[in-house]
């Protein structure tokens, strides 16, 4: 599926980028931001939720050890009396029991709790890596294009045009077999790391253009301001102007963009996996769990419930967190 076009962020920070001093005690802007953030209860709660998801993802093997099951063993197939003849769990509520906390997967009979934990790990790893890279490349390219202008801006601009008009999903479907035939012998399995790296590469390749275009526009309006001119007159190098004068004013759009990107990448990755070019079985995947859930929900609603609810919570918390951070950085836009 295509990624939804990110919405334009609200107007950027005040000239100078320095939030007005609060009170008479001298506090650094960072400290002020932190104080404002801590006062925002929704923000703090969301931060904990997001943190929790990342901890779960990172600690998946430890959880598996403590819990006693793993995401690959087909419990329902190995043991009699767990699944019926159609492959659905025999116990009510999707086969929830003391041994299988979130029940069993219909068909193969794997442990849903473990599938979810490991699926979150896969999806978050890919989405987080792609978001980081996208933001990094987008910020650098956007800043350079906007600040340097002229020919450079023109070339980068046309490059971005091409990328934005490119059907990324189609590209990936065509790209993956080429990568496989280049790097994998026909009698070997495609390694999971190759799939992961390709996914991250392609998501990044088509993701950075939007963020770069956005920042270029912001920089264009900022670079004519007095504080930039002042810096230039005092003999600051372009690098210093870009990273010390311009960048601090751009945190708001950057943070909003990347908090929107991360959940979008999680869903994009799920979509590709569904089309058979992303992460495939037996590697657990969050998005694929939900897709499978949507197929069997009439007979086993529980199987859709856990991955679905956890994804809703995660996306919601991540977006709220982004809002709160933005508010904390820039109190003027506070509602």
């Amino acid at each position, binding site marked *: *599926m295509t990624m939804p076009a990110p919405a334009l962020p609200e107007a950027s920070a005040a000239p100078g980028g320095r939030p007005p001093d609060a009170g008479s005690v001298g506090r650094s802007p960072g400290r002020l931001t932190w104080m404002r953030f801590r006062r925002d209860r929704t923000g703090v709660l969301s931060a904990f939720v997001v943190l929790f998801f990342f901890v779960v993802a990172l600690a998946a093997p430890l959880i598996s050890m403590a819990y006693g099951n793993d995401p690959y063993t*087909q419990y329902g*197939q190995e043991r009699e009396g767990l*699944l*019926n*003849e*159609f*492959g*659905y*769990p*025999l*116990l*009510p*509520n*999707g*086969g*929830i029991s003391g041994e299988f906390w979130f*029940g069993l997967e219909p*068909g*193969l009979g794997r442990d849903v709790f473990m599938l979810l934990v490991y699926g979150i790990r896969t999806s978050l790893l890919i989405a987080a890596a792609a978001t980081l890279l996208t933001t990094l490349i987008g910020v650098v390219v956007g800043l350079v294009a906007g600040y340097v202008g002229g020919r450079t801006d023109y070339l980068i601009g046309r490059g971005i045009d091409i990328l934005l008009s490119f059907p990324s999903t189609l590209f990936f479907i065509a790209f993956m*077999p080429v990568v496989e035939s280049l790097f994998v012998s*026909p*009698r*070997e*399995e495609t390694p999971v790391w190759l799939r992961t790296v390709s996914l991250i590469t392609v998501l990044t390749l088509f993701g950075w253009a939007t963020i770069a275009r956005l920042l270029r526009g912001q920089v264009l309006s900022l670079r004519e301001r007095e504080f930039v001119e002042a810096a230039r007159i005092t003999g600051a190098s372009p690098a210093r102007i870009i990273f010390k004068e311009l960048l601090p004013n751009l945190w708001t759009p950057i943070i909003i963009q990347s908090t929107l990107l991360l959940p979008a990448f999680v869903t994009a990755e*799920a*979509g590709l996996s*569904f089309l*058979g070019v992303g992460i*495939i*079985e*037996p590697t657990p995947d969050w998005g694929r769990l*939900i*897709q*499978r*859930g*949507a*197929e*069997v*929900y*009439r*007979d*086993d*609603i*529980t*199987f*859709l*419930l856990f991955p*679905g*609810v956890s*994804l*809703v919570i995660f*996306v919601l918390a991540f977006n709220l967190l982004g809002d709160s951070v933005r508010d904390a950085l820039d109190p003027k836009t506070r509602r």
Partner: protein
Amino acid sequence: MRYPRKRAVTAVATLVAGALALSACAQGGGGGPKTTNAAPTRTQDAQAASKVKVGTAEDSKGPAAAEPGATKGGTVNMIDRDDFTHLDPARIWLNYYMTASKLFTRQLTEYKLAQDGSLTLVGDLATDAGTTEDGGKTWKFTLKDNIKWQDGSPITTADIKHSFERIYADFTPEGPPYAEEWLLPEGKKYKGPYDGEHLDTVEAVDDKTIVFHLNSPHPDFNFTVAMTGYGAVPKKHDTKEKYDKMPFSSGPYKIVSHVTDKSMDLERNEHWDPATDAIRNAYPDKWHMEFGVQALQSTDRFIADNGADKQTLTFHNPVATERIQQVVGDPELMKRTVQGLTPFTTFYNINNSRVKDVKVRQALISAFPMQQVRQLQGGELGIGKFASTIISPTVLGHEPFDLYGQQTKPQGDPEKAKKLLAEAGQPNPTIVYAYNQTPTQEKVTVAIKTGLEKAGFKVVTKPLNPATYYDAIGKLDNPYDVYWSGWATDWPTGSTAITLTYDGRKIAAQQPNYSHFNDPDVNAAIDKASAIVDPAEAGKAWAALDKMIMEKAPIIPEFYQSYFGLYGSGLGGVKFHPVTGEQYPNDVYVKQ
């Protein structure tokens, strides 16, 4: 006949929020009966086509036996996944196209489906099921009186001769290969009747009598000509390539419109005389067909049973795997189902040109986790019975045997496989399993990999694009060791189950012999079995051949496929047809 690619499950990715909203109103999840006691009203065995018999001239006389309680009139709707890519009889070798053709194409012979599900081969355009006096080398058919094309002109032997000659033309490569091979005189090249050259082997003696001179004895040639692939095409209205879009009707309906991939509409052909037709009842006035409906969608529409969907059936779409449990658990829905054993068998080809050691091949069969594979695809109702032979129970003379314990230990026997691998001296052979990449097959692959690894195999899985799956495995030098395919007999005798798929002399690229099995003894035995005239004797010979081939383990038999379908509550006379393995259109009527 060719097997359609495994149906790709293309459920639309549902947005999380939407899915959750839906789930709130769905019935409580999980839990279910361990086994279902909903005994099918007709057992699948009773419907097996092996009960087929050859009818007499009396059986071939029209009109067709009336369906109890049937009334004339109304419109029947048909929804299915695909459009009919081919309608020209000479280009049809797929059961789905054959089912549609039953409404507007007639052949020399055809199967009559009785109320109890038994089949009789009777004359369709011919007065009887054909006669031969020299053990199947020369076949004589006599045409009925009053048989007409949709423009009212009579169907003559010149038309029939033309229909058989045009199968040699360049534009009809898709049809069945049998008559094309058997009617060609030794050493002759023939390119169809269009440049004035004709075949002497198809002899139109007079307006009513046609004689076929085959180049070798084929005692079941009267079954061959029952295939839609040998349906009648009018000499006067043969539009060559264009005929595929708009065939000229000889049956009870004619095509009034056909929008590719969208819809097709049929209306009565007033020149069709029911008194000449022993098979077709043709109760409804019109047929309206719509394409592009996936199995899950059509199942949900039949379950909902709203509006015009009440008068709707599907030819091929089965009950979606995800809904089988629901349908089986609802006696009201079970009343509207058709089920039966199709002529299709499915199997995993072992690439015999790569896996040369017979012990390794036998170990593969022993270790294969068939039960897990079946459970993932809908169990016995959804996909079929465990197979352990090449010839399916629907074939005349089928003899059950189980060389590798596939019936007794369907979950796989890793211990036995380990022993075989040890005897072969390769305890951990690497097996590349190539599969059709659909969500269901991905899961099936996980089960296969787990099962084979228990026996010590090192399994490499290779996903293949569903659109080019058969092309990829059809290459002679393909790098894979195991890959799935399916096959069905074209008529219910053993010859078409074995000749095209296990005759080593027929190995070629993109041919059905995907396992590249070539054994001189088997090749000789095939020739011997093909020449046996007596059907019962021939059946025994084919069954013996089946066992002889399976001892060499060229394939891993998977399922004798079953069909399980639903239809709307406003229709009657919807039946399962054992030869096509689909819903049967000729006795359908709209309930008044």
